[in-house]
Structure formats: structure tokens, C-alpha cells
């Protein structure tokens, strides 16, 4: 179904209602008599006046515009858009979890605390860490908590370091988290193979450096072969090593950040551990640390004793609480379910198949698109549309055409070190048939760039909206409905 673009406000008809309430059995009260004038609004809010059927039909139609892993292949690089097993949903909906109030006394929430304790233990084992906080609500918040722990660690040792090193291929969240934690960000160059430029690292690694943030494999989908050398170098200068765990899917059961010399590592449960991603979220970004950083973990920490499980608040060196209550608990249930469903061998197979799928796709597309950093790759590969750009077809054009051919687009223009980047991460949950169909579409587009480029420039034509004017949207954002305004008219609608 295409072309539906109404706001619920635009369906409003004066006097229409979708409810019927019984007459009140107490006298009506005048709000003016009960509340101070300053707390009363001058006029009634202009809420949409709609029937129950209007509401049901409106949201059903919007839901049919959804595009997600449950309907389509979604090769968005660096996002690990794998299938989210429905068993996870069943477990998260168990009454004992779903209806548990977060302030239920510990004695009456032992099952939930046990799940949190065991999930923390399992994540620590998977990453080679000694302790885990489940609180952060997203990868970036895990990063921030991790960098704050590193800062607390240095300060506890009487060291006031000021800089954090971040490679130029890093996710944008790395410099952002670092800056919010009060550090100056120093960008490191990539070398010709796409890894960290060791000379540049040595040059910048002085006594002011609190940490290096590194992503393994990196955003080019390449394993950093000198990671041990890099972490030793950092430790020798008193700097900590933060591992961005966004790409953990590629190394599950093969190696562990802790064994690579990393001191801190976050987990994107909504990537590697199959909790819903994006609109179906929320996310969850637990953070793991080595023993020397454990005193600084956010409070509270779930502990286990002979008396059962409890929340430990008595942690004087803690960076404090970073999230409401105990984190996004429903996501913890889903991730726990996934880990227990897969088991150690299953998780190892995840990484093996994610790598195999990415390399298969890379090999099939290599003759048709430039590959600035040749593989073999890990869980994702980054092509450049620079060959197509010479024909007037940019990475964004390729992305738009893919929508017409029934696929979500790869990440575009990231990482920044690749010109006209197309970053493709198939994940382990896709079949060979799906990968082949996607490759066929990409190859068709490469051919169209040479023969019928207008087809690509016109794309997408099959979606509910055509090309949106993203420049106008960014320069003059129009973010909400305002009373009395005529419905927006866009020339991009079909």
C-alpha cells in the first residue's frame, strides 16, 4: 500500500469521538476552582477528534508502510540488522517479567535479579571482561559510561589526563562520548590497509592520553592485525584501551576484546544479541570492564550471595547511576534468551556465518564496484561508488534505486575514509538466495549506471514517497503539526 501520508490531526472532524464514558457519579468540578490560574491553559488543546475506526485504520495503514527485518533484507552496514527471534518476545512477555514493578523489593524479584546477574556473567565471559553493568540504554551511553569509568580510574590514581585518541574510521559516537566526558578528541589516521597508523599512534600517545577507543573489527569490516601491539603500546604509556563493541558479531566465540588487551568494552544488545533495533527498541548497551575498573561501575550492581541476589549500592568509587531504574530490562530478557538459545557453539556459528555471508557478497560484487580496502573482510564490506560517480551516479543514487528493487539500502557515506561509501553488512541470518537476489540487484544497478542512468536518477518510483528533499528538510526542519495550518503539500508525493 503506497501513498498514505495523513497525520491523525488531518482526519479530525469536530465533535467526532471514539469513546463513550458513563455519566460521572460525583458532581462535576470546575478546574478553575481547584487549580491556580497559572497552571491552567488558556484554551483547550486541539486534540484530533476521530472515531475508533479512524484510529485503527490510520495506524494500521501506517504500520503497513513499515520497512524492517521482518519484511525485507536490511543490509545497513555497522548496524547488524539480524533477525530478532520471536521466542525473545515470548520470554519478555512472561507475566513475572513484564508486570514486575522495578521497585519491587529484592526478596520478591529474585528471578529478575538472577537473570540480570547471569546475563552480566555471560556477557563478561563472551567479551573476556571481569564485570558488566547492564544499565546503559544504548551503545553510545555504554561508551560514555566506559569513558567516565576510565576518567574516574585515572583520577583515583592522581592522574589528570586530557585527551582520548580515536581513529578516523571510528563511529561518530566515539568522539561524541569522549567530548561529553570532558576529554579532547585527537583523531588518528588510518594506514593504507585501513588499520590504525602505528606511527601516528606513537606520535600522539603521550602522558596526556587517557584512552584509545578502537573498533575491532573496524568500520571497514577489517580485523586490526596489530591490536595486541596497539594495546601494549597504550598500556606502556598508562593509557586505557576502550573497545567499541558495535562489531562484536564478527568475533563471537572466535576471540574476545579482553584477550586483545582491551580494558573496557560495550555490547550493543540490539545488534549482536537480537533485541529489536530502531523503532521496535529501545536499545541496550551494557558495558564490561576489567577488574581494575570494577570499583567504578555504575550503581547499583547485582550481586550474588548465599542469601540470593541483591542490588549493591555501597560502591564509593562508582561513577553513579547512568539510567533510570536498572536499565532497559525487557531487552535484557531478550538478550539472555538469545544467549541461552544459541549456546557457545551457536554463538561461534553466528560469527562464522556472518563473515562467510559478507565475504560471499564481497566476492560477487567486487567486479562491479570498487573495493578500496581489499578483503577478506569480517562481518561487513565497504564498497565505493566512485566508478559509478564518474558516470553521474553517486552512492546515494545506488541506495535509492535499491529501494525500487525491494531492498533496504546499505549505509552510505560512512565510514568517512571511503569516498562514496556503500557499507554492506548482511548478517548471519540471511540465506544464500537472499544474498544472491541482493547481489543481482546491485549488479543490475551497476549496469544501469552505464546504460540507462536516468532510471537510477528517477528512483525510487515504487515507494510511498519519491526522493525526499533532505537538504530542505535539514535546513528548514518541519517537525510537528501546528493547529490551524493547512496540510503540508510536497511535490515529492506520488
Amino acid at each position: 500500500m503506497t501513498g498514505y501520508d495523513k497525520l491523525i490531526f488531518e482526519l479530525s472532524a469536530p465533535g467526532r469521538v471514539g469513546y463513550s464514558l458513563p455519566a460521572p457519579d460525583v458532581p462535576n468540578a470546575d478546574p478553575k476552582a481547584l487549580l491556580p490560574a497559572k497552571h491552567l491553559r488558556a484554551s483547550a488543546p486541539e486534540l484530533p477528534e476521530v472515531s475508533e475506526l479512524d484510529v485503527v485504520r490510520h495506524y494500521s495503514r501506517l504500520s503497513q508502510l513499515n520497512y524492517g527485518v521482518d519484511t525485507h533484507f536490511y543490509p545497513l552496514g555497522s548496524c547488524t540488522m539480524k533477525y530478532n527471534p520471536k521466542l525473545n518476545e515470548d520470554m519478555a512477555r512472561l507475566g513475572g517479567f513484564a508486570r514486575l514493578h522495578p521497585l519491587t523489593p529484592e526478596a520478591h524479584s529474585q528471578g529478575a535479579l538472577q537473570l540480570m546477574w547471569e546475563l552480566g556473567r555471560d556477557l563478561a565471559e563472551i567479551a573476556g571482561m571481569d564485570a558488566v553493568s547492564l544499565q546503559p540504554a544504548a551503545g553510545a551511553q555504554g561508551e560514555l559510561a566506559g569513558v567516565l569509568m576510565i576518567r574516574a580510574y585515572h583520577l583515583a590514581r592522581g592522574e589528570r589526563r586530557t585527551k582520548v585518541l580515536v581513529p578516523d574510521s571510528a563511529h561518530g559516537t566515539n568522539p561524541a562520548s569522549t567530548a561529553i566526558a570532558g576529554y579532547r578528541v585527537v583523531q588518528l589516521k588510518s594506514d593504507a590497509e585501513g588499520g590504525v597508523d602505528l606511527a601516528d599512534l606513537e606520535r600522539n600517545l603521550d602522558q596526556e592520553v587517557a584512552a584509545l577507543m578502537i573498533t575491532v573489527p573496524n568500520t571497514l569490516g577489517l580485523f586490526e592485525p596489530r591490536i595486541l601491539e596497539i594495546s601494549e603500546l597504550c598500556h606502556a604509556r598508562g593509557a586505557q584501551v576502550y573497545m567499541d563493541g558495535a562489531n562484536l558479531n564478527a568475533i563471537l566465540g572466535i576471540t574476545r576484546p579482553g584477550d586483545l588487551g582491551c580494558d573496557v568494552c560495550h555490547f550493543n544488545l540490539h545488534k549482536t544479541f537480537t533485541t529489536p533495533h530502531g523503532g521496535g527498541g529501545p536499545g541496550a548497551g551494557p558495558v564490561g570492564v576489567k577488574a581494575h575498573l570494577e570499583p567504578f561501575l555504575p550503581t547499583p550492581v547485582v550481586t550474588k550471595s548465599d542469601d540470593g541476589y541483591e542490588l549493591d549500592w555501597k560502591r564509593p568509587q562508582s561513577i553513579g547511576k547512568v539510567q533510570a531504574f536498572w536499565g532497559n530490562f525487557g531487552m535484557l530478557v531478550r538478550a539472555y534468551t538469545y544467549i541461552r538459545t544459541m549456546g557457545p557453539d551457536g554463538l561461534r556459528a553466528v560469527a562464522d556465518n556472518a563473515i562467510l555471508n559478507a565475504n560471499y557478497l564481497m566476492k560477487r560484487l567486487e567486479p562491479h564496484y570498487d573495493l578500496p580496502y581489499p578483503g577478506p573482510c569480517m562481518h561487513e564490506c565497504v564498497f565505493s561508488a566512485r566508478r559509478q560517480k564518474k558516470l553521474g551516479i553517486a552512492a546515494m543514487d545506488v541506495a535509492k534505486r535499491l529501494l525500487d528493487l525491494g531492498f533496504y539500502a546499505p549505509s552510505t557515506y560512512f565510514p568517512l575514509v571511503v569516498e562514496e561509501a556503500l557499507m554492506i553488512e548482511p548478517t548471519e541470518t540471511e540465506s544464500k538466495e537472499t544474498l544472491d537476489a541482493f547481489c543481482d540487484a546491485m549488479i543490475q544497478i551497476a549496469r544501469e549506471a552505464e546504460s540507462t542512468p536516468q532510471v537510477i536518477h528517477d528512483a525510487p518510483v515504487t515507494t510511498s514517497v519519491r526522493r525526499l528533499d533532505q537538504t530542505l528538510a535539514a535546513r528548514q526542519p518541519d517537525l510537528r503539526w501546528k493547529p490551524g495550518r493547512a496540510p503540508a503539500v510536497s511535490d515529492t508525493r506520488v
Partner: protein
Amino acid sequence: MANYPTDLKYTKEHEWARVEGNRARVGITVYAQEQLGDVVFIELPKVGTKVSQMQAFGVVESVKAVSDLFAPLSGEVAEVNAELVKKPELVNQDPYGKGWMLVIEISSPQQADALLTAQQYEEFLAKGGH
């Protein structure tokens, strides 16, 4: 080549500087704005801010990416192009003219020697530009 006027000096981060006496007008190159695509937001320092050569002085955001802007020369910000806040597209339309960003009161004129000439900058771009 008209894309890289010979009266300008260039950085490897794709800024240009036009030295006029003890002041330098600063912006980003044609190459930079092409790579960025449509510029949608620019953050510039206030007049009077001290800037250092090759340290970030501001931020440019396009539909594709957010990038730091680096000062070609050290000194103090003497003028800021206030029009860019309302019309960031000037950076795309006229990067060496109406798309200028800052005028810097130069503190170390000899720093200009470290910048690239138009010819050197074009050679740098030919080798990949980063």
C-alpha cells in the same frame, strides 16, 4: 585552474586562506564542498576568539557528514560571515566568495609558508586528497 585560485593558500584539510596584509579570509575549497554535498549548518566562533593553526575553529554539517573546520593560520577572529547561518548554501554556491567563513587577524605571518599553493593542493588532491 579556476577551481583553485592561485592567490589563495590551502590546507590538507581543504580550507583556503586569502592573506590580505595582516588579515586572512578563510573558507573551504570547491573540493571540500563537493565532497560534503549540500551544506545545511555551519557553526562558527565569535569575533575575538583565538584560533590556532590546524586546530578546529568550527563545524560544517552537510546531508552526508559533520566535519571540523581547521584554521589555516593562528590569530584572532576579526570577522565572521553571519549570513552563512541563514544561508549555508552559499558555501556550495560560491565557496571562494560569498561562502567565506572568517577573517583572522594573523598573529604569526610566517605560518603561511606552511600552507599549500594552488598547484601543491591540486597535486595533493590528485594523489587522493587525504
